[in-house]
């Protein structure tokens, strides 16, 4: 039993573990203390001081997020002094804030707005006479940075440093010039930013947002000459509901498909289809690498690492450019989809690919950058015209005036609308690995992976780095060199954990054969394009929805999806074949850190 401390909060006796903050202690007795710079994903900063409380015997107010409880503390959270200070602090924050809330993307989902309204602050009281003319940095394909809305809480800085180990943004200058800036104040597209968008989901205001493209998509939808296709990523269907009145973790797949059709997309397809295709390609690429290494003793880069997460891809390009050969050459499902929509799909439905506008609904900010990578033009056109976030889709549905909750469910269109449960779990950390193992194990042994109900539990969950080993026994004759081999895999999510994995590879001590990396904590369900807020509690609920979605699917393995079989028969011919290489695989760029 850990040491406990007895205190009183607003007269209520509380006993908590030593070292607990006053804020957390208050939560245990349902005393709500307002916060702004605090985020449970991040280290404590104590910047904004909104959470101040009175502690008997102390001259100054105490920031409850930063102060650990001490035996016998008498804490008061709502005295006149506290309320006065809080109101003034919020007024001060408002005094420097661009309060054009009516036109702000984060309006009604802004923590400062909520606080200002809750405390009914007088925005004129400490009106700043000098509002610096701050420019919006729109240089990046993914992230927009508007300093006029920044409250300097440094959540983004802590996110970029602690969760992601990227350090693209940091605090610069001091005093009146203090601001959140990039290296040498360069534009966001010129720095080491990997576009993961975690800063966006951790920003309490509209200072950091994803760059929006939905206005252009509305235009395309309205253009009768265009054939507008949208494909929706696995984790969008388990998070979109949060923006439209559903509790966290609600699956809204059928309603989402219906809404998108009503909005006017000519075809609503499923990114899960190319997730299954990724498994086919990546699984065989893995087997090919292992065959070369174990059977022929050739020098190939192992462990092989997944390449579905564009934030992760840019991270390794910047941070470990000498190890790019470890990345699978498979494009992400979004990009596979893009190149197939303007080739295979166009041919199938008889539409001129130049008239197709290919849109991807993604939980991700980095997908926007990925869509605009110059090499992503395998179809002869820009493969993906726009990547929209879950939030943008939510806004589009709101703008359309649809009664989302009462929409009947609908199925995805065809072609490229069919998929397996293995594809939908791509949305959760460990999902790509699980999907790959379901297929690879069966290809090698001819049997289903030996886990109850196909649930490979060791790769699931929110632990930063997960490990698993699968022993291959009684393999098919073609894979006799794998008999008795224990395939070691690892899963990392959040780039902080990816760095640990990469440092092992760099040091030559990595014990793994196959590694899955997702840039965002929790995987895509916690992506930078998902509804705000995202916390571990929310991640868990979205993950549970993902696995429920998997279990409800009639097909659970990528290689058994009829449309997948069909595309290989009619178009691609074989995994890693000529056409696959042309359309589904890519190469990477060595990038510098500065």
């Amino acid at each position, binding site marked *: 039993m850990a040491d406990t401390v007895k205190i009183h909060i607003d007269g209520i006796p509380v006993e908590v573990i030593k070292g607990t903050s006053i804020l957390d202690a208050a939560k245990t007795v349902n005393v709500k203390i307002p916060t702004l710079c605090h985020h449970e994903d991040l280290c404590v*900063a104590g*910047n904004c001081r909104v959470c101040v409380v009175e502690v008997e015997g102390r001259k*100054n*107010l105490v920031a409850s997020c930063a102060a650990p409880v001490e035996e016998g503390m008498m804490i008061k959270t709502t005295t006149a002094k506290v309320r006065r200070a809080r109101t003034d602090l919020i007024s*001060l924050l408002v005094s420097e804030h661009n309060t054009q809330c009516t036109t702000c993307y984060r309006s009604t989902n802004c923590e400062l707005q909520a606080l200002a309204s809750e405390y009914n602050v007088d925005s004129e009281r400490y009106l*700043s006479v000098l509002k610096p003319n701050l420019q919006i940095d729109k240089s990046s394909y993914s992230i927009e940075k508007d300093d006029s809305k920044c409250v300097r809480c440094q959540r983004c800085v802590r996110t970029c440093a602690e969760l992601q180990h990227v350090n693209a943004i940091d605090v610069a*200058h*001091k*005093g009146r010039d203090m601001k959140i800036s990039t290296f040498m104040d360069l534009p966001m597209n010129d720095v080491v930013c990997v576009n993961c968008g975690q800063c966006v989901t951790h920003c309490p205001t509209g200072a950091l947002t994803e760059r929006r493209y939905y206005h252009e998509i509305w235009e395309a939808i309205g253009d009768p000459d265009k054939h507008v296709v949208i494909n929706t990523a696995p984790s969008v269907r388990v998070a979109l509901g949060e923006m439209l009145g559903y509790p966290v973790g609600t699956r809204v797949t059928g309603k989402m498909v219906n809404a998108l059709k009503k909005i006017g997309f000519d075809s609503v397809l499923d990114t899960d289809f190319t997730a299954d295709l990724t498994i086919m390609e990546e699984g065989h690429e893995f087997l090919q690498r292992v065959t070369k290494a174990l059977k022929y003793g050739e020098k190939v880069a192992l462990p092989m690492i997944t390449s579905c997460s564009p934030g992760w891809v840019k991270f390794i390009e910047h941070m470990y450019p000498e190890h790019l050969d470890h990345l699978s050459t498979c494009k992400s499902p979004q990009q596979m989809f893009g190149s197939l929509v303007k080739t295979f799909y166009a041919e199938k439905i008889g539409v001129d690919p130049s008239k197709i506008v290919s849109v991807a609904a993604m939980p991700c900010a980095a997908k926007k950058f990925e869509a605009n990578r110059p090499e992503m033009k395998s179809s002869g056109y820009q493969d993906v015209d726009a990547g929209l976030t879950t939030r943008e889709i939510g806004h589009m549905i709101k703008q359309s005036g649809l009664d989302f909750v009462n929409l009947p469910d609908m199925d995805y269109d065809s072609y490229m609308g069919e998929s397996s449960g293995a594809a939908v779990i791509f949305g959760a950390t460990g999902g790509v690995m699980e999907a790959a193992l379901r297929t690879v194990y069966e290809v090698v042994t001819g049997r289903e992976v030996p886990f109850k109900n196909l649930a490979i539990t060791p790769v699931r969950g929110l632990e930063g780095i997960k490990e698993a080993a699968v022993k291959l026994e009684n393999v098919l004759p073609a894979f006799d060199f794998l008999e008795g081999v224990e395939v070691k895999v690892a899963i990392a999510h959040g780039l902080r954990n990816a760095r640990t994995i990469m440092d092992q590879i760099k040091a030559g001590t990595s014990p793994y054969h196959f590694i899955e990396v997702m840039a965002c904590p929790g995987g895509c369900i916690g992506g930078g394009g998902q509804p705000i807020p995202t916390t571990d509690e929310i991640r868990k609920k979205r993950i549970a929805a993902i696995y429920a979605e998997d279990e409800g699917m009639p097909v659970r393995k990528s290689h058994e999806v009829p449309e997948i079989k069909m595309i290989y028969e009619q178009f691609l011919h074989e995994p890693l074949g000529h056409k696959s290489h042309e359309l589904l695989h890519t190469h990477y760029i060595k990038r510098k850190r500065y």
Partner: protein
Amino acid sequence: MTKHKQIRIALRNCGVIDPQAIGEYIARDGYQALATCLTKMTPEEVIDQIKKSGLRGRGGGGFPTGLKFEITRKSVSDQKYVVCNADEGDPGAFMDRSILEGDPHSVIEAMAICGYCIGADKGLVYIRAEYPLAIERLKIALEQAREMGLLGKNIFNTGFSFDIELRYGAGAFVCGEETALIHSMEGLRGEPTFKPPFPSVSGYLGKPTNVNNVETFANIPVIINKGAGWFSAIGTEKSKGTKVFALAGKINNVGLIEVPMGTTLREVIYEIGGGIRNGKKFKAVQTGGPSGGCLTEKHLDTPIDYDNLIAAGSMMGSGGMIVMDEDNCMVAVAKFYLDFTVDESCGKCAPCRIGNKRLYELLDKITQGKATMEDISNLKNLCTVIRDASLCGLGQTSSNPVLSTLDNFYDEYIGHVVDHKCAAGQCKALMKYVVIDENCVGCTACARNCPVNAISGEKKQVHFIHQDICIKCGACYDRCKFNAIEIQ
């Protein structure tokens, strides 16, 4: 006549010895204290002496030095550090620089003693890069001490090892705050973090660290040599020894002084400082730098020590002391300090970063004659919030110059707001240059010298100053030989 009021302990060797010759320091009992500590005393005994001496931190906080040593000693760790805070940054203050320039060995010796007390073999001096001479002398002194075996391995053959490195600060005022200082030394942004944990438990690189400022260290060898009793006989009940002040402002003798605790402000200003310049009237004395406050006539007989200054609404600070006369506008003085704070706030916490900006703007409004009584009430309110809610000492004390002038010179604020008058005639927006018709002979000197052509009038006719054009530069006033221009 003024000499006897001063006792030099921290400054004992400054100007007396050649700071670049270790022999001269040794000749004046230098490194004697370190030898005594290492060869004749246990660390506990040394700490006990320092505790008994009553020495308190001279950087401003006034924390008992011996107690700090003891806490750091009791922190269990494989590695500990001694840090000397030489990031002196109060405007007009240069006590620590003078010690480092004039007597660097006293600090080196004391740091080694501290290392012995707390169980550290490494010391760091965090010094402003703008102090090149102090840095050079410190480097020479370190080299000489190493050559003589007074730093390095196995000092005095006792098995105790200690050495010192320098770390340069870029001149951010907030880096004088110990947690910010430590972050800066670690190569991080110089931002304070909340305490606990205190540096004595988790400081530089997460290890127990004893941070003291230059002047505090400079006292320690003397305490060991002459005894805690000798030291504690000087000063007041709760503040022992002496304090160095940088005397500046409208006073006849400016410069560094070192006086026993308990000396009154009157003695400092009128006896040591030689009174107010040009026979003007004393108005206020600002102590404690940007964190301190302004004291008035009624405080002149207050004995200077940590507690009395705080009770009077100011603080000891690191020793800045600026004297003001009747020509100083107290609102402008408060504004000056706020301007400094706004620039030097690290920007981390909201009340300090934004609140001080708004305070500055309110003060500016007052000096422009555009403020209302509501602004005065907002000013007071905001000061309280900044004081109560800021993260570190900088923010918690940044409103002191405003609060103390509001307390002591409320009438002056009201004068600006209600009567639109600056009694000291310092606030340009509130003053007016006008021609005294009877005295004007129409010589045109004023009009010819006005840089903005604000004065009109024919030769040998009375001239007129157009207030909407006038920039209040005073050129006409200076040029007029007939006393025909007055300031209203």
